[in-house]
């Protein structure tokens, strides 16, 4: 059991680092999704299936989807480039 927990924790740490190191927000939505899936695995290993289900629903589906749609809207042509206008 300890080995499974250690493996899950290491995977979560690695995925968290991957999210931080992903520069492009659109790609970050995907790494965030992977991180949430691994977090759900960790919660399952810690015997918290209810939390794991919530994490899968929110973390792997809704949040990345909202990020991707928001990024798509920001980068749409015909709008003021918010990256240069926001400074």
């Amino acid at each position, binding site marked *: 059991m300890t080995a499974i927990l250690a493996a899950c924790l290491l995977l979560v740490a690695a995925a968290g680092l991957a999210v931080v190191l992903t520069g492009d927000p659109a790609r970050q939505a995907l790494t965030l999704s992977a991180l949430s899936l691994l977090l759900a695995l960790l919660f399952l290993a810690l015997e*918290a*299936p*209810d939390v*794991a*289900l*919530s994490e899968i*629903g*929110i973390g792997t*589906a*809704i949040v990345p*989807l*909202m990020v991707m*749609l*928001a990024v*798509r*809207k920001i980068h*749409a*042509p*015909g*709008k003021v480039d918010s990256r240069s206008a926001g400074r």
Partner: protein
Amino acid sequence: MSRPVRYVVFCLGVVGLAILLAPAVAHLPAFGSTFHPYRTLAVAAAVAHRTANVVSAINFDQRGLDTFGEESIFLASVAGAALLLRPGEHETERRPLGHARMLDATRLLGYVLLPLSTILGLDLISHGNVTPGGGFQGGVVLGTGLHLLYVAGSYDALEKMRPTTLFEWGEAIGAGSYGALGVAGLLASGAFLANFVPLGHFGALFSGGTVPLLNIAVGIEVASGGAILLSHFLRQAMFTEPAGGGRRASGERDE
């Protein structure tokens, strides 16, 4: 704020957090120990109300008021997001025409997963008092899974199967019935959200008194709210554009 000043502020914050956190962590019970006073009390209370899923008993029975607050936050967030994402005065909504180009494999996956996710969502809501899951988890699965229609079919199919008005009503009715069940408990047993319904048999589908009823209320609210939230995001990101700017061929989607 310049970069060095920002680092100083950051370091002050980290040191402060470390000073407060270190003694707290040092006094935590060891990981995996058998000392769980809250667990002992919560499990006994859940069994007394014949709710097999102790987490649901905590969320909807023992601490139902907390969940009521969370549901209200969810309702307010969805309403706020819908308000922000509505097409502005200078924006026009463009109707997508026909089917978009989509890989057959993606389309097939959508067709297969749509009924599966719907059944899973309904199962999670209806068995929330017995097995892991509940209104929130099931509602999220239902509200998100519905959008597989867009992946499998077209935006038209999604619009037909997702009457936004119905979901707006669902959101309000779900949140309202949670409050109504709370008031009913107040009238029947003298406490807001008291478990006043017959408890049934331990492990049965209808057991735990108000827990399955509150699960259904939350399930309706979260499924409707999730569908509304995603529909507004989808509409704003895909089919709304500044007036006069035809930026893309109709019905086309990004991969």
